[in-house]
């Protein structure tokens, strides 16, 4: 594997040269794609983030002004940050618990495992626009099924999506419906667990709780870590549901980061400002990924000794 290109001692063999040529030809779509659809846009949006740019006129360099305004003067920026983190803080742990619970239930080798798995997975493939419209109807305060169910048990349900203090909980509840993707990933992990571990623990008289806390969770920690990172990145891109259901309302209670970014770019045509938001998001995502990977070595079991 260690091919040293251009080294004087090891001149490139004709075979390597041929491999390089053929390899590059086959990989050409990705190389061109990276340049056109990733590298250029990344550089361009970084540049735009230092400009004032309304599309109609060419960009004007303003230095750090966009970042300054965002971090010091824009109350909506902090509001959207708060909304996003609120959704993250409640959606992520509850999704992990529910998805893991479902995966552990399915892992009990019950009959019809595939059937149940299909049912739990199905919500994740429903188009977001369709599920958003459906959940609006479920959350309908007067005729929706949720408040009807609450009424049955004597609770007068809230306005959900139309009430500023219930709109975020409503979104979090809706998000739980589509944890099936994580469930499938956790299930794959659980099925990889060595059986001997459980057998040894059972001989030692461990009960279900002990086994879960001391075996399953440590073993599953890489999967949980992986999913938490991706969920956190996902929440900052949470867009379709709020765009369809609330457009940020009521009273900005569901205006999340990605929605505000989109609105700055394509509703107010503040491309420079939106680019600055995008780069803050990007730095946040990269930083988070690096940080979690770095600290994970300490409290995550990766197999082996």
């Amino acid at each position, binding site marked *: 594997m260690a091919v040293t290109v251009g080294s004087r001692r090891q001149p490139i063999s004709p075979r390597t040269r041929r*491999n390089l040529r053929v390899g590059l030809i*086959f990989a050409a779509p*990705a190389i061109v794609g990276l340049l056109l659809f*990733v590298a250029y846009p*990344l550089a361009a949006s970084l540049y735009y983030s230092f400009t004032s740019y309304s599309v109609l006129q060419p960009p004007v360099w303003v230095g750090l002004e966009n970042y300054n305004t965002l971090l010091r003067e824009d109350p909506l920026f902090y509001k959207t940050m708060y909304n996003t983190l609120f959704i993250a803080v409640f959606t992520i742990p509850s999704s992990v618990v529910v998805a893991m619970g479902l995966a552990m239930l399915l892992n009990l080798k019950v009959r019809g495992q595939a059937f149940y798995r299909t049912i739990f997975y199905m*919500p994740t493939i429903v188009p977001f626009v369709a599920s958003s419209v459906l959940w609006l109807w479920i959350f309908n305060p007067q*005729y929706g099924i949720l408040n009807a169910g609450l009424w049955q048990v004597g609770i007068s349900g809230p306005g959900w999506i139309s009430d500023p203090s219930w709109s975020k909980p409503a979104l979090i509840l809706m998000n739980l419906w589509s944890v099936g993707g994580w469930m499938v990933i956790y299930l794959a992990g659980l099925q990889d667990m060595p059986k001997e571990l459980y057998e040894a623990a059972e001989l030692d008289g461990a009960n279900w709780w002990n086994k879960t806390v001391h075996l399953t969770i440590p073993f599953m920690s890489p999967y949980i870590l992986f999913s938490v990172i991706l969920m956190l990145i996902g929440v900052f891109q949470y867009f379709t549901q709020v765009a369809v259901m609330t457009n940020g309302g009521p009273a900005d209670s569901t205006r999340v980061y*990605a929605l505000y970014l989109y609105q700055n770019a394509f509703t107010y045509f503040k491309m420079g400002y939106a680019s600055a938001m995008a*780069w803050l998001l990007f730095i946040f995502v990269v930083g988070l990924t690096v940080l979690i990977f770095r600290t994970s070595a300490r409290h995550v079991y990766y197999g082996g000794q």
Partner: protein
Amino acid sequence: MANLTEARPAARVREAQSHVSRRKLTQSVLSHVALIALSIVFLTPFLWLLSTSLKPDRQIFAFPPVWIPNPPTLRNYQTGLNFIPFWIYLKNTLIYCGLSIVGTIISSSLVAYSLARIRWPGRNILFGILVATMIVPPQVTFIPLFLVFKNLGWLDSLAPLIVPHWFGVPFFIFLLRQFFMTIPPELGEAATIDGASEWQIFRKVVMPLATPVLATVGLFTFLNTWNDFLGPLIYLNSPENYTLSIGLAQFRGQYSSLWGPLMAVSTVITVPVIVAFFFTQRTFIQGITLTGIKG
């Protein structure tokens, strides 16, 4: 449970003997009860969707809610599909899905082949970069891309949505590379001795083996494009160019209380996805099984 065993002392002996299997049975019953209860919870939104779409208006706006439409009616479907130019949106969506699937499969498998089976310096670097780009949020790139496509005169067409799929999609490159690496190299080497070119090995040896994985890639691309909302929202302006997802969103924006027709259109948009999922589930499992193919 305790009362039962006290009332029948004879059973206690048997119980002790079959303690383990009884515990297994209890566990199995309990887990089925839990799974059935949870299934009902997960299925309720689907039933509510379907039920509302088939109900006449007075039952839609009834309290407490009516579950069984009486009489079931297709009126909402007629109204909904006529309110939006459904067939035009469907045509646009299918063009978007179809051309994206073809492009993704061709470009991603070429790249994955290069990364998995051709030993060239730099391939691991390229792979690392591709994997890293998976965390780049679309929000970071969509403004410059919008401006590029604007300058190309591609706005309000499906081109900005389709074309990027023809340049390799990192996640699918990753998936296909994993699969290609499991195919023994001897398979290709034998063909090389017979004078086959790299292209012929790719086309005649590797790709036929990869059919189930390619089906998976196709399925996921179908789901992604059929469900895509952000892309069409950014690039499409005129209703005659809309896809279904954006058409439904616009319908909901204009007529927010036409719940019957809204549920009907939502059902129509959801059904193909569910059908595609059921249809390919077998292929998907086959793909996993085939990974252990012999040389």
